[in-house]
């Protein structure tokens, strides 16, 4: 029903190119893990190493504690749900879902019963006799899920299952996916390049870049305390501000930046205890610029609004601080505020939300 996964120093090279570079990762049984990263970063490669479609150049994979080297996809306790669903176009839904059972030699009536059960689980019982091309994208995705679950895998591997859906349907399917995972308890390893999707469904997110794991943790952890510039940038819009540590106390440090001086808690320094003279990069999310009035805020002088666009929940503005005119900061202003390009506004910052990384 469910199993833990352990990836140890997995590397995959294609000629001189390292698609996967010494990746190690431990996944608990029943966890919902999301592999997140830009196109070409190796997510599919890692997933297909787990599924057994690709053999790693080096390293090993353990599922439920058993080494998977040389085990064919069919014999692994994994099932993959492919990005394009990979439904068999010439089979009815019930035959699609029952295919794995058929391969396991189940008699027809029994497998039809079971397949019906899984179609019911995903809410498509009434369409059992249709063919895949008669379904909408979202429905196909559910059939693919039912088919993968029907063989009762310990680990379900999902390669961008929601990539082809439009935004609205996507959000809806995310909720369903999460709900089904909770119900069946299977370990899910889910690949996506959409950070919103990752945050919405993951127990833990693995941020990948160029074949390496950049960051790893619960969604809020990665968003609020990214461990690398890449991770910070990938999880959402962010302003990078170069700075230098001026003074460092036990529990806080003073950092000098082009727009002013900020005192940050020591815990916000990801790369270790700050020391005077360290070059750091401050990561500031647009929503962390706040009204100067706020009590915990640090004032940073004034800034010009160079442009503003309404984004529904907020205005997205480009700001040019007076102290460093050449900088362009992105800040979110409240929906209710009236922002006019050219206006001057006071700039303030909530220091507890700022992360300091070693300068690149």
């Amino acid at each position: 029903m469910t199993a833990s996964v352990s990836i140890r120093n997995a590397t995959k090279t294609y000629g001189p190119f390292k698609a996967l570079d010494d990746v190690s990762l431990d996944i608990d049984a029943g966890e919902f893990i999301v592999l997140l990263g830009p196109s070409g970063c190796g997510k599919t490669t890692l997933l297909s190493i787990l599924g057994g479609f690709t053999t790693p150049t080096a390293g090993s994979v353990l599922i439920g504690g058993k080494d998977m080297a040389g085990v064919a996809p069919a014999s692994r306790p994994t099932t993959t749900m492919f990005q394009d669903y990979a439904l068999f176009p010439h089979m009815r839904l019930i035959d699609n879902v029952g295919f794995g059972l058929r391969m396991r030699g189940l008699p027809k009536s029994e497998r039809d019963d079971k397949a019906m059960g899984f179609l019911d689980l995903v809410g498509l019982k009434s369409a059992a006799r249709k063919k895949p091309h008669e379904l909408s994208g979202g429905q196909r995705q559910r059939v693919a899920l039912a088919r993968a679950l029907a063989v009762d895998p310990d680990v379900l591997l999902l390669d961008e299952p929601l990539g082809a859906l439009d935004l609205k349907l996507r959000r809806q399917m995310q909720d369903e996916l999460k709900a089904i995972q909770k119900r069946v308890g299977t370990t899910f390893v889910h690949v996506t390049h959409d950070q919103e999707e990752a945050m919405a469904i993951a127990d833990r997110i693995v941020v990948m870049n160029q074949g390496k794991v950049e960051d790893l943790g619960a969604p809020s952890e990665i968003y609020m305390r990214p461990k690398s510039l890449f991770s910070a940038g990938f999880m959402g819009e962010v302003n990078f501000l170069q700075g230098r540590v001026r003074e460092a106390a036990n529990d806080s440090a003073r950092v000098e930046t082009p727009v002013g001086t900020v005192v940050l808690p020591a815990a916000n320094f990801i790369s270790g205890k700050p020391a005077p003279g360290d070059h750091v990069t401050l990561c500031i999310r647009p929503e962390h610029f706040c009204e100067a009035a706020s009590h915990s805020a640090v004032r940073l002088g004034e800034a010009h609004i160079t442009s503003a666009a309404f984004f529904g929940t907020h205005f997205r503005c480009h700001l040019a601080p007076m102290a460093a005119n050449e900088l362009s900061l992105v800040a979110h202003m409240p929906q209710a505020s009236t922002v006019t390009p050219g206006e001057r506004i006071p700039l303030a910052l909530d220091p507890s939300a700022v992360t300091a990384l070693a300068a690149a």
Partner: protein
Amino acid sequence: MAFDQQARTSDVLLHQGRLKRVLGSCLSWLYLACIYGFIFLPVAVLVLFSFQDGRLPVPPFNGFSLQWYEAVFADRKLTAALANSFLVATTSSVVACTLGFLAAYALARYKLPGSALQRGLLIAPMTVSYLIIALGLLAVLNTFGIRLSLWTVGIGHVVINLPLCFAVIYASMGDHHINIERAARDLGASDFKVMTLVTAPMLMPSIMAAFFLSVTFSWDEFIIAFLLSRFDVTLPVEIWSMLRSGLNPKTNAIGSLVFLVSVAVLLVLELALFGRSRKS
């Protein structure tokens, strides 16, 4: 009122453009009529004179008679040739499709050394005239003392149809099918089952297209069938020798029959395939 006025002026403007378009489409239809006339002329004459009452399938048309159709059905050589043609066409097409499918599958799904060369080799017979293929085979078969028969004709037809089947099936084997096959393997299907339960059914439209193309070519092929057969001959060869042995509308009758049957088969297929393509 104002709206009316406006509508009218725009109508005039539209009218000028339309005039040009009407002229253009008139020319198109004229061309269409002429070229269809050209295309159907021999068939029409063929069918008409298959009903000729008399020995000469030439004008004037003497009257309507079914005697030549009776003659066709009474001619056991002709019916044997029909059966032979059918046998050779279907068998060689099945072989060509099977070999073509397997090769296309391997070359599309696996990275093999020299795969470009292999593809070139498999396609190569398409760029060589049938006559040359037939002569080469004839020479080699002679040297090895292999007796000419329907089998040797079939071998020749597989040679010419294999590239065709390979190309058609290979072209339809897109990368988007890879995941479907992986899914099947992932769900426990063996290689053989993947191929028979998933890949082949999935590609059935193009496999069928290749098959029928190949049947068409084999059915109508003359030179290979002529050079590589001995006693049992296919229809084109039989017709050829009928033609050499004297003028009569029997050839028209058999030609018309083949045509009508092919059209019927085509219609059935078309309806079946069209029905399917409309659904998807």
